[in-house]
């Protein structure tokens, strides 16, 4: 009795299981062979904060106000303000460093920036073998922004 029940159950499980896998065989594969093929980057996805460059002037939008520095929870942004020879403040950053090894991609700095100078990039392959290489300077950040924008213009506007 119990034995027959178990035989019946086992047989049924095998038939059901095979039927499901057979049916799935007829479908297109859903996997993407990653390094060769890249899955689409979704609109509104974010990777790291980068500095925007003004289209007309070719300079950074950033005026070095330091609000993003203060908003960043793990304090991975460091800005020093530009000064001219007389010691007057200039509205752009002398240095702008972003420590990617600490950044948690939370978007808080972008939200804090009142000058639309920061944006989340669409570039994800930023890994490196050295931690030091993960500390990005303002030039590098602007470069990443340009690559990312080129990708995005091809792929549509972001959210």
């Amino acid at each position, binding site marked *: 009795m119990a034995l027959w029940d178990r035989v019946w159950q086992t047989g049924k499980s095998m038939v059901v299981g095979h039927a499901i896998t057979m049916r799935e065989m007829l479908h297109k594969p859903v996997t993407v062979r990653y390094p060769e093929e890249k899955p689409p980057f979704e609109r509104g996805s974010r990777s790291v904060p980068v500095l925007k460059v003004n289209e007309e002037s070719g300079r950074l939008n950033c005026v070095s106000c330091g609000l993003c520095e203060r908003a960043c929870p793990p304090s991975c942004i460091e800005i020093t303000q530009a000064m001219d020879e007389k010691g007057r403040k200039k509205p752009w950053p002398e240095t702008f460093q972003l420590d990617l090894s600490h950044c*948690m991609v939370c978007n808080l700095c972008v939200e804090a920036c009142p000058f639309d100078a920061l944006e989340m990039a669409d570039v994800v392959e930023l890994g490196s073998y050295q931690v030091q290489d993960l500390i990005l300077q303002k030039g590098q950040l602007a470069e990443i922004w340009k690559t990312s924008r080129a990708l995005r213009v091809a792929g549509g506007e972001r959210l």
Partner: protein
Amino acid sequence: MEAQGGAPAVVERDGRRLMKINMGPQHPSTHGVLRLIVTLDGEVVVGVEPDIGFLHRNFEKIVEGWSYPGIVPFSDRNDYLGAITNEVAVCLAIERLAQIEVPPRAVYLRVLFCELQRILSHILFYGTFGLDLGAFSPFMYAFREREWGYTLMEKATGARMLYAYNRIGGLRNDLPDEWFADLEKFLVFMERQAWPEYMGLLIENEIFRERTIGVGKLTPEQAIAWGASGPVLRSTGVAWDLRKAAPYLGYERFEFDVPVGKNGDTYDSAMVRMLEIKESIRIIRQVLKMLPDGPVLARVRPNLRPRAGEYYSRVESPRGEVGVYLVSDGSARPYRLKWRAPSFCHLQLVPAMGGGGKVADLIAAVGSLDVIMGEVDR
């Protein structure tokens, strides 16, 4: 602790030769860096002792030096498969102390995302639990839907796992209309195709039933005494769900059932999770019907200072009860924030569940607890 790498330690006890071996910290079936020190008599488990702390980063100390808005994205890292529920738990605590009114649309969307998160987490549980028991195909099926769900999440929140989507006072951004259409497609697929496939491939499979029924049994008394919650507690037959017992986010407005098990074994706990997927789909459907219009983020001072006081907020995460005990001294940083992680409490049950069985049953027991080491070690 004798079993410190190298040859397994052999101990003599009552004339039996017992062996102490390490399972983990790097072991495919321990779900992260969990180390189990297992005492074996042949293949029978005589004693288990979980050893944790490999992922410890002292979340609670770090946030004492942070201002409130940063805590919300950081809390994602605790239970990284239930990130939204973590964020909601912290936000509820902070909003209660700071007396911030969350706009109704944001509340409904939070419910939606909590439930979507629950579905995704349970799908992964299904896949990895099958993998623990040696069934590989279900894992691939689980990842098919999981990818889809994570893409949905990515479209909405901008990230695939660690969303940083909740803000104090609401949500980061509203959603476009197409997103809801995509979500509906996903739900229909889950209901019509994926869920029956899951049942046929694994849960109703005779081998799976043999491996799990009667394994890792818990009694309701044990579960309550040891602080179990979520599906683990419900699998013992206790209908305890914070969404019903202590409704937050207005869960009392929605109609859903709390699935419970009977025997408290690993089969029941898997079954409870499978049924919860259906209930979550039901809740999401109701949210979509009731979703009001309006803003999703209340205006909050950037330099938020909740009033002095303490609040304990509890949220039903996919794994159980997440609690946030927030002590504020009226300044811009929390005085103390304690994270109550369900997996932390569940791991205490491993000796009770795995002792006396075979090694393979121990793996089933640990797998059925669905522990996330990120929140155990914090």
